[in-house]
C-alpha cells in the first residue's frame, strides 16, 4: 500500500515535468494537441497526488507506524479529528498537502480559462507545473514522504499536545490555501507578459483567485493567532515570531496588490507595479514556506531538516531572476496610460495605501532578519521583539486605517474642495465629536484615542455610502429599506463586499487597540484564598487530579470568578502531563465578553495543593474574531458571480478588444 504512495509521487514528478514541457512547447509551436496533452498531464498529476494523500491518510488511520512520519505524529490513543490533522503536523505531509492543493487549484483554473484565455493558459499551466516540480522533487528526494522505520514500533510517538486543539485542524490548511492560491494570479501575470498580451484580461480572470487567496491567507493568520491565544497560554495572540511574520508579509503585499490592480483596471496605471507586486507576493509565499519548514529560524514551527531549505532557496532565486528579466524585457507593454495628476485623488490614496502596506512588510522583514544580519555583519547577537514591531507598526496601521475611510470616497484624478467637503464633512465632524466624547469619558491613552477616533471616521464613511446608495434606490418609492439594501449590494457586490470587509477590519483594529489596556497578575495562593485583578475577584477553590488517558495525567484547578460582587461562574484551567513529551502543557481558561477577556493560566501546584496562577484581563480581544467573521461575509459578497462583470468579459472575448 505504501509502495503505491511512493510510486505515485515518483510518477507525479515525471508527469509535472512533462506537463511543463508540453505546455510551453505546445504554446510556442502553436500545437494544440501538445497543449491539450500538457493539460491532461496536469490533471493526472492531481490524480497522482490524490492517490498519495489517500495512502498517507489511510496509513494514519490504520496506525501504520512502519512509516516514520506516521510514527512521529500519531499514536493509538489519538482521536479521529487529530489523526486527520496529524497529516499536516509536520514537513512531509505539509509538502504533500501543498502539492495536492496546487494541482487542484491549477486544474480548476485550467478548466475556467482554457477557452476564455486560450492564448495565455498554456504558459500559465507551465509555470504552475514548474512550481509542482519543486514540491515533487522535495517529496521524492529531499524528504521522502513514505520513509520507512528500521523496525516496526508497537505504538506511535503521538501528536504534540499543543497541536491537539481544534485550531490546529484549520490553521495550517487554511494558511496553505492562501499561500498556494496566490500562485494562480502570478502564473497568469507572467504568462500574459511572456505572450506579450496587452490589456487587463489576466487581472479580470484572476480577480476571484486573488480575493480567495487573500481571504484564506488572512484567515489562516487569524486562526494561528487564535490558536496561540487559546493554547500557548502567554496571554497574547501575536508574538512577532519569525514564522508568524513570514506568513504575515505575503498578506501585506497581497493586500497592496489587491488594491492597486483596481487602479490598473480603472485607469490603466501602475502596470509594472502590479506585475512586480504579484511576483513579490508569490515569492513571499515560497519564502514563508521556506522559513516555516526548513528549520532556518528556530521558532514555534521549525523542524530539524535543513536540506529542504536549499531547494526552496534555489527555486526562489530562479523565480526572482526570471521575473525581473521578464518584467524588464516587457517594459514597453507596461507603460501607464494615464498620469498621476494630484495628490488629492483616489489614485494617490491607493498609492499611499500601497506605500503603507509595503512599508509595513519591509518593517516586518527588517525586524525579522536584523538579528541574523547583525550577527553576520557585526558579530553581535541582538533580539528584536514586540517592542520594535509595535513601535513601527502602530503609526503605519493608523495611517492605513485613516486611508480606509478616505480612499473609497475621494474623487478620481483630482478632488476638488467641494467634492472633499461633500464626502468628508460628516465623517470628520462625527469623528471629532467622538474624540471629544472619549476624552470626556476619561480616555487618556493617546494611541488608543487616535485609533478609536479613526475607527469612528471610517465607520461613518461606510455608513454614509450605504445611506446615500439606499436613498437613491428608494427615491422612486418602489423599494423599502430591506429590498433597497439587498438590491444595492447585489448590484455592486464588489464595492459593498469591500465596504463590509473594511468594516470588519475596523473591528479588528478596535481589538488591537484593546492591548493598550491589558492588565496581568501572577499570584501564589492556598486553597480557599482569593485574589483580585481589575474588578474581578478570583477564589482558588481547589485542584483535582485525574487520568483521562493512559498517556495523560491531568491536574484541574477550580476557581470561582466574581465581578462587582456578582458570581460569574467557575473557571477550570488545567495542567496536563503527556508521558511522551517532556513539557507539561497548560490548558488556559478564558471568560470572554465583547468588553474584555478574563484569561486564567494554571501555572503550578505543590504538594500541599497550593497553586500559582497568572491572570490576564485583555480588553476588546473578542473584536478580533468578530472582525474576522465580518471580513468573511464581505469576502463572500465580493466573490459572488456578477452578471455585469460576466457580460463585460464576454464582450472582451468576442470583440477581441483591448481593455
Amino acid at each position, binding site marked *: 500500500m505504501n509502495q503505491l504512495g511512493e510510486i505515485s509521487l515518483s510518477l507525479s514528478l515525471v508527469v509535472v515535468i512533462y506537463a511543463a514541457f508540453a505546455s510551453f512547447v505546445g504554446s510556442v509551436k502553436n500545437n494544440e494537441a501538445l497543449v491539450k496533452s500538457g493539460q491532461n498531464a496536469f490533471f493526472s498529476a492531481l490524480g497522482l497526488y490524490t492517490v498519495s494523500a489517500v495512502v498517507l491518510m489511510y496509513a494514519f488511520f490504520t496506525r501504520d507506524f512502519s512509516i516514520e512520519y506516521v510514527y512521529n505524529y500519531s499514536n493509538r490513543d489519538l482521536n479521529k479529528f487529530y489523526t486527520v490533522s496529524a497529516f499536516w503536523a509536520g514537513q512531509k505531509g505539509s509538502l504533500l498537502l501543498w502539492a495536492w492543493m496546487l494541482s487542484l487549484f491549477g486544474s480548476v483554473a485550467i478548466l475556467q480559462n482554457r477557452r476564455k484565455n486560450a492564448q495565455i493558459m498554456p504558459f500559465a499551466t507551465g509555470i504552475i507545473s514548474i512550481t509542482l516540480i519543486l514540491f515533487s522533487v522535495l517529496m521524492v528526494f529531499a524528504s521522502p514522504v513514505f520513509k520507512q522505520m528500521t523496525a516496526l514500533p508497537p505504538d506511535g*510517538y503521538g501528536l504534540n499536545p499543543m497541536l491537539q486543539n481544534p485550531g490546529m485542524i484549520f490553521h495550517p490548511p487554511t494558511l496553505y490555501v492562501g499561500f498556494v492560491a496566490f500562485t494562480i494570479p502570478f502564473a497568469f501575470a507572467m504568462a500574459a507578459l511572456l505572450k506579450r498580451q496587452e490589456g487587463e484580461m489576466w487581472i479580470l480572470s484572476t480577480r476571484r483567485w486573488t480575493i480567495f487567496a487573500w481571504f484564506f491567507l488572512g484567515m489562516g493568520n487569524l486562526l494561528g493567532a487564535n490558536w496561540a491565544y487559546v493554547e500557548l497560554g502567554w496571554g497574547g495572540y501575536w508574538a512577532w515570531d519569525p514564522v508568524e511574520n513570514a506568513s504575515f508579509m505575503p498578506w501585506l503585499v497581497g493586500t497592496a496588490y489587491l488594491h492597486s490592480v483596481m487602479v490598473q483596471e480603472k485607469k490603466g496605471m501602475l502596470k509594472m507595479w502590479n506585475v512586480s507586486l504579484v511576483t513579490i507576493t508569490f515569492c513571499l509565499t515560497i519564502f514563508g514556506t521556506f522559513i516555516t519548514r526548513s528549520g532556518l529560524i528556530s521558532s514555534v514551527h521549525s523542524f530539524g531538516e535543513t536540506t529542504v531549505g536549499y531547494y526552496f532557496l534555489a527555486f526562489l532565486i530562479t523565480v526572482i531572476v526570471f521575473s525581473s528579466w521578464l518584467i524588464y524585457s516587457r517594459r514597453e507593454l507596461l507603460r501607464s496610460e494615464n498620469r498621476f495628476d*494630484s495628490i488629492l485623488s483616489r489614485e494617490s490614496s491607493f498609492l499611499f495605501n500601497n506605500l503603507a502596506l509595503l512599508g509595513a512588510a*519591509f518593517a516586518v522583514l527588517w525586524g525579522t532578519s*536584523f538579528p541574523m544580519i547583525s550577527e553576520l555583519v557585526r558579530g553581535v547577537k541582538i533580539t528584536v521583539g514586540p517592542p*520594535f514591531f509595535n513601535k513601527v507598526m502602530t503609526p503605519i496601521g493608523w495611517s492605513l486605517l485613516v486611508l480606509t475611510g478616505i480612499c473609497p470616497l475621494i474623487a478620481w484624478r483630482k478632488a476638488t474642495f467641494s467634492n472633499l467637503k461633500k464626502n468628508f464633512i460628516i465623517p470628520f465632524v462625527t469623528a471629532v465629536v467622538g474624540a471629544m466624547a472619549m476624552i470626556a469619558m476619561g480616555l487618556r491613552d493617546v494611541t488608543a484615542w487616535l485609533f478609536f477616533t479613526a475607527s469612528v471616521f471610517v465607520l461613518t464613511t461606510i455608513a454614509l455610502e450605504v445611506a446615500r446608495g439606499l436613498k437613491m434606490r428608494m427615491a422612486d418609492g418602489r423599494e423599502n429599506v430591506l429590498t433597497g439594501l439587498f438590491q444595492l449590494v447585489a448590484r455592486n457586490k464588489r464595492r459593498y463586499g469591500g465596504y463590509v470587509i473594511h468594516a470588519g477590519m475596523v473591528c479588528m483594529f478596535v481589538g488591537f487597540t484593546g492591548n493598550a489596556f491589558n492588565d496581568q497578575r501572577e499570584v501564589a495562593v492556598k486553597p480557599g484564598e482569593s485574589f483580585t485583578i481589575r474588578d474581578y475577584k478570583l477564589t482558588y477553590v481547589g485542584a483535582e487530579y485525574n487520568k483521562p488517558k493512559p498517556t495523560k495525567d491531568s491536574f484541574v484547578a477550580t476557581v470561582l470568578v466574581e465581578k462587582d460582587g456578582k458570581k460569574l461562574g467557575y473557571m477550570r484551567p488545567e495542567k496536563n502531563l503527556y508521558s511522551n513529551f517532556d513539557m507539561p502543557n497548560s490548558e488556559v481558561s478564558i471568560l470572554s465578553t465583547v468588553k474584555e477577556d478574563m484569561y486564567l493560566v494554571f501555572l503550578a501546584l505543590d504538594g500541599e495543593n*497550593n497553586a*500559582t496562577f497568572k491572570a490576564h484581563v485583555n480588553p476588546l480581544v473578542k473584536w478580533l474574531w468578530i472582525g474576522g467573521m465580518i471580513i468573511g461575509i464581505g469576502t463572500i459578497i465580493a466573490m459572488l458571480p456578477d452578471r455585469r462583470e460576466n457580460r463585460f468579459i464576454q464582450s472582451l472575448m468576442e470583440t477581441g478588444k483591448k481593455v
Partner: protein
Amino acid sequence: MDIAQKKFLIGGLVVVGALTYLVYTGIKETSVYYLTVSQSASMATTNRDFRMEGTVIPGSIKIAPGSLGADFIITDAVKQVPIKYHGAIPDMFKDNIKVVVQGKYDKDGVFLAHTLLTSCPSKYEASKQGGKI
C-alpha cells in the same frame, strides 16, 4: 517630468524617508543585546536591559515556597553568574537546562531578571530519545 509629477516624487520620498527613519530608530531603541555569560561582564555598569543565555548549574535552584520566583546560578562553562528572578517559573525549568534571562546587573554583580525563558529541544517532534527502537 512636470510639476505634478515632481510633487509626487517628493511626496513619495518623504513617506519612504519617514518609514526608514521609523525603522531605524525602532531598531536602535528597542533591540536587546543577547549575550553569553562571559560577554555579559561588559554590561555590568550600563543601566540597560539585556538578555543572557546560560545553563543552570545543578543544585543551584532555590525556590522559596509560596513565592513567585527563583534564585539560581547559570554558566557558559567559563564563567558563572547568580540570578535573582521574580515571576512565574516556566514548566521546563530545572537543573542543567539552557535558559535565557532578561534584566540587568545590580550593584553587587547579581543579575536581576524579570523574564526567564526555557528552550525546548524539539517543539513539535518526538524528542529523539523517547520511544525509538
